[in-house]
């Protein structure tokens, strides 16, 4: 990140797209831009060339607070053995999709 900023002077933005029938925005990549408006236009040019999206979100990468890989175990491992958190004890009818 630091090195990138020295090179271009433009901060990094993360790009999220929603497809025509997609329900949610999904992360598709990142780009450099001087400000959010420019990032939106760059996202249009870089990530919707094949008619993928009907809605774009851009977020400054610096504004994202992410979990650290070092804390992976304390963060996520405790849920591994708690089988009661999964709704696996219900009988699901066969004709219910997307479960």
């Amino acid at each position, binding site marked *: 990140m630091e090195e990138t900023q020295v090179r271009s002077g433009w901060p990094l933005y993360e790009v999220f797209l929603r497809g*025509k029938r997609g329900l949610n925005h999904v992360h598709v990549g990142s780009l450099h831009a001087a400000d959010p408006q420019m990032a939106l236009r*760059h996202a249009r040019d870089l990530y919707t060339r094949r008619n993928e999206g009907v809605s774009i979100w851009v977020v400054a990468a610096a504004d994202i607070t992410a979990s650290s890989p070092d804390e992976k175990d304390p963060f996520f491992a405790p849920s591994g053995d708690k089988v009661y958190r999964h709704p696996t004890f219900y009988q699901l009818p066969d004709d219910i999709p997307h479960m």
Partner: protein
Amino acid sequence: MTEDEFAAYQSLNEETGDHRWAFGTGFTDPLEGIDASVPDGVDAAALTAYCLALGDDALIYSHRLQQWMTRMPELEEETALANIALDLLGQARMLLARAGQAEGRGRREDDLAFFRDEHEFRSVRLAEHTDADFAQLAGRLLVFSAWRLALFGRLAASADPVLAAIAAKGANELAYHRDYAAQWVIRLGDGTPLSHDKMAAALGVIWPLTDELFQADPVAARLPGVAADPAELRAEVDAVLDAVLGAATLDRPPGAPLARVAGKAGRDGLHTEPFGYLLAELQSVARAHPDATW
């Protein structure tokens, strides 16, 4: 990746039913399957010349933008400009194909693009200008796309249904080109003192080429209801340019229009000296390997 996440990505790649998203792949005639007849009462020779001129504007301008490829300051800007160049190339293909249909001598878009000589090209001289820097690129694209959008807005109601459809499709593209250029003119004009001066200097170079866009066109005059009167576009284009220049804290540059030579300008087949070099680069491969495909 879970199944749900995968489905979310899948939804971005849904079949759109539009197989023409890329030009040059899988089809050879951009107007394939479209009724090619010239409407009753329309002067076919004038329609040929008119579509040729509008196609030449896009073809020549697109080539000038392509020459910027690998030279842009940022990867993202390069993609943006390549998109714009491809949009214009697509417009050129359809307009030259329409010119070939209206002419009725069996000339295809490639014949018209690659096997005509300099004096047969009818593009305005603004289209062939070599941008000396990024500010000229932005300023010239602003003028060109604002003018062409005003023109296509009128042509979308043309009495020639093919020209009307081409214009309606192109108007969306041009609205984006104009927005892209306006963003940069404002950003540079209203930026640092250095960027402001560079943008002002660039407009000073571009402005003499703008007058030609609004000069009377004898070809358009022969196509009532089909073509647009260039003089009519001036008010709309001026309003757009004034709004952008105002936001960019720039003044409309003084300076006399680029003179006609012996009464001729771009629409008469008269071009500036760099045009010959541009054409040589544009046509050399097609002329060395006629009818080659890949």
